[in-house]
């Protein structure tokens, strides 16, 4: 399972998303690799990511891709992330 945490530059928002997603996945006992990437990497047609974690503004920029898109409103809220990730993975 490959999950992309996406942001404009691939260093800020995406790294925070990855950091919290790693914690949530480990709590849920799910094995997955979370990679922090830029928006350009995320829309690459060769992307193998099954799930994209993204903030609301960037959602419209990834509408063409095959991966399932999970929009995270509050990046620091582990309960939101837990609920959305479990739903996406079920």
């Amino acid at each position, binding site marked *: 399972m490959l999950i992309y945490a996406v942001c404009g530059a691939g260093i800020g928002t995406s*790294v925070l998303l990855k950091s919290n997603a790693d914690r949530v996945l480990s709590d849920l006992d799910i094995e997955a690799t979370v990679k922090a990437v830029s928006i350009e990497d995320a829309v690459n047609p060769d992307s193998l990511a099954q799930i994209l974690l993204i903030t609301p*503004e960037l959602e419209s920029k990834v509408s063409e891709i095959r991966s399932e898109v999970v929009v995270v409103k509050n990046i620091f809220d582990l309960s939101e992330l837990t609920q959305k990730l479990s739903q996406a993975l079920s």
Partner: protein
Amino acid sequence: MRTSLIDPAAISIQDSVVSFSEAISLSTQLLVKSGHAKASYVSRVKENFERLGPYFVVAPAIALAHAAPGEDVVSPGLSLLKLNQPVVSGALENDPVSLLFSLCTPDSNSHIELMGEFAKLMGDPEIVNSLLNASAESVIREIFQT
């Protein structure tokens, strides 16, 4: 060992700003003032905002401005501009913004630990409330002492 998650010189409280763009300038200039980045980083962060919009408004009232790694970054760092009168960023969620953090990193790896600590700290709603209610820079500096 890091003694403070945010350099004391990179923390500032301001009453108000005229625009979110001005707030981004002020917040990233704190990274320059504290020696983490050179002046051109400020314009790169603003270009990033103009190109992609306020996607870095990551939680209610909280934003994390940044640009890609570059030669104008000296070392990984965070800054915080707290606004007493929050500013509207135009983000779909989470407006208006009171806490505008800025981040810089010379490459895509050396700030990972810093971000992990930052995420842990900001995941605590009590800490976020203390930051939102802080009226003195000394209070904020104390919160980021580790």
